């Protein structure tokens, strides 16, 4: 009697838990779909070729676009990658391969601290380091700030992904007379490639949406970006300006900018995944 009740209770609990987890998963997806859907509806409706390729028009005029902001964001991402990827990837390799001692764990801890530093603080850092001495806001300072934000994300994912590579692969390379650096770069990093690329994409997705550190580094501009030592426009800055502005036309551009930003991140995501796929990973 009581044993049977125990079974019933267990089955009931099992169903409850399954229902709870399913519900939470659905809520999480629903929020995401709601945001993406709303952006798509509001943004895509105003999207057209001119909007993607033209400069913003002066206040009062209709039309105009966010072409300069798209270009600026791409340039800032590129500059950030120049700073963030080499430092991040090589630090990750260091931590995974040689970071066993106290220096390694200190480095790991500091990296985690850096992950938690608010991006505006990193903006101030870039402002002090680059903007003040150069006496001007610049794409360089903005890209540098974003690159610093990338470093810890890339470092830790590179390290984690390299640690997932079975040590037998490294041993196989060493046993064939490969010098250590070749075993690490040619076999371990290569095997971890897809995972590292995922980390890089996460980092790019994160910085592409940053606004605060750009406010006093890249500054933003209403013109096409010309040189890296000049202020540069960025989608996030433009969205911020337009969304908080008083004009209906600006609001439309803000929605379009939001849509383009999300689409840009998606495109970068897919293309990096495609470029770094390993054809020999599985079966054929």
């Amino acid at each position, binding site marked *: 009697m009581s044993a049977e009740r125990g079974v019933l209770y267990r089955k009931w609990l099992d169903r409850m838990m399954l229902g709870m987890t399913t519900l939470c998963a659905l809520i999480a997806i629903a929020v995401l779909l709601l945001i993406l859907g709303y952006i798509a509806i509001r943004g895509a409706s105003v999207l057209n070729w001119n909007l993607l390729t033209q400069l913003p028009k002066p206040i009062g005029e209709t039309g105009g676009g966010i072409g300069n902001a798209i270009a600026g964001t791409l340039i800032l991402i590129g500059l950030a990658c120049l700073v963030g990827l080499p430092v991040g990837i090589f630090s990750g390799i260091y931590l995974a391969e040689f970071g066993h001692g106290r220096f390694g764990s200190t480095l790991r801890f500091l990296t985690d601290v850096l992950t938690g530093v608010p991006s505006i603080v990193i903006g101030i850092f870039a402002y002090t380091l680059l903007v003040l001495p150069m006496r001007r806001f610049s794409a360089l300072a903005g890209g540098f700030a974003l690159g610093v934000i990338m470093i810890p994300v890339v470092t830790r994912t590179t390290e984690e992904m390299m640690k997932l590579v079975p040590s037998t692969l490294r041993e*196989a390379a060493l*046993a064939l007379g490969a010098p250590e650096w070749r075993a690490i770069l040619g*076999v371990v990093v290569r095997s971890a490639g897809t995972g590292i690329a995922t980390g890089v994409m996460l980092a790019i997705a994160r910085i592409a949406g940053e606004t605060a550190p750009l406010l006093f580094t890249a500054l933003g501009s209403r013109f096409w970006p010309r040189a890296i030592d000049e202020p540069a426009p960025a989608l996030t800055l433009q969205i911020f300006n337009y969304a908080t502005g008083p004009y209906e036309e600006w609001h439309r551009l803000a929605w379009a900018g939001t849509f383009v930003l999300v689409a840009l991140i998606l495109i970068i995501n897919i293309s990096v995944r495609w470029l770094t796929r390993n054809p020999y990973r599985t079966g054929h």
Partner: protein
Amino acid sequence: MMSQFRKMDSQVPKVTSVKIETQQFNFYYGGHQALFDINLHIPEKRVTAFIGPSGCGKSTLLRSFNRMNDTIHGTRMAGRIWMDGLDICRPDLDVVSLRRRVGMVFQKSNPFMRSIFDNVAYGLKVNRLTRSRAELAERIEESLRQAALWEEVKDRLHTSALALSGGQQQRLCIARALAIKPEVVLMDEPASALDPMATQKIEELIAKLREQYTIVIVTHNMQQAARVSDYTAFLWIGGLIEFGPTNKIFTRPDQSMTEDYITGRFG
């Protein structure tokens, strides 16, 4: 108990010359001593098997022959291992050139995430052993033939090595090790993860390769040791209990402990 090992004299096999000789070799993982005063002669161009229960140090000893233990942190060794007059325990030894001479096949097949061709090519490319693409292809075919894999893979050399079966993957790893023409091939339980058919193929392969290479094989499977090896070393908790011709070890061992292990009374 340990003093018993120290009294053991190394037993020099007659007939063939010695390829590797260990002298009072000791090995430590941090504070834990894994090998005690090992004195052993590995004969050239013969198959030598290391048997013994798990944790007896047979893999550690095997991995000392190509300094693979260097990759584990906090290990330390004492004593000497001679290979053709070179002390391979020297701290300043160029391990890369040692590993070109001493190849290794691991317990679990570990092909790279590359094509079959590129797997075999890896050692050749890293060591710049071939001068032209034609020579490279030739060496790869030769190695795959030696490993009895050529017929099965010749039409799909540029497909993923990971699509091969477990037994084929292990033979690919053997081909990869043979490609750089080592003098010694170390095999760490090469068939323990394979089914009986694949195991048989590996054993046939070992029988064929013994004419050209000095082979040292670690195995858990005593029948396998009896089948494939010319000499057998029995290790027990870090000490070498007995070493001699395989048929002697398996029929009339000198040590009662060896007999007890072989007949399955412990271990």
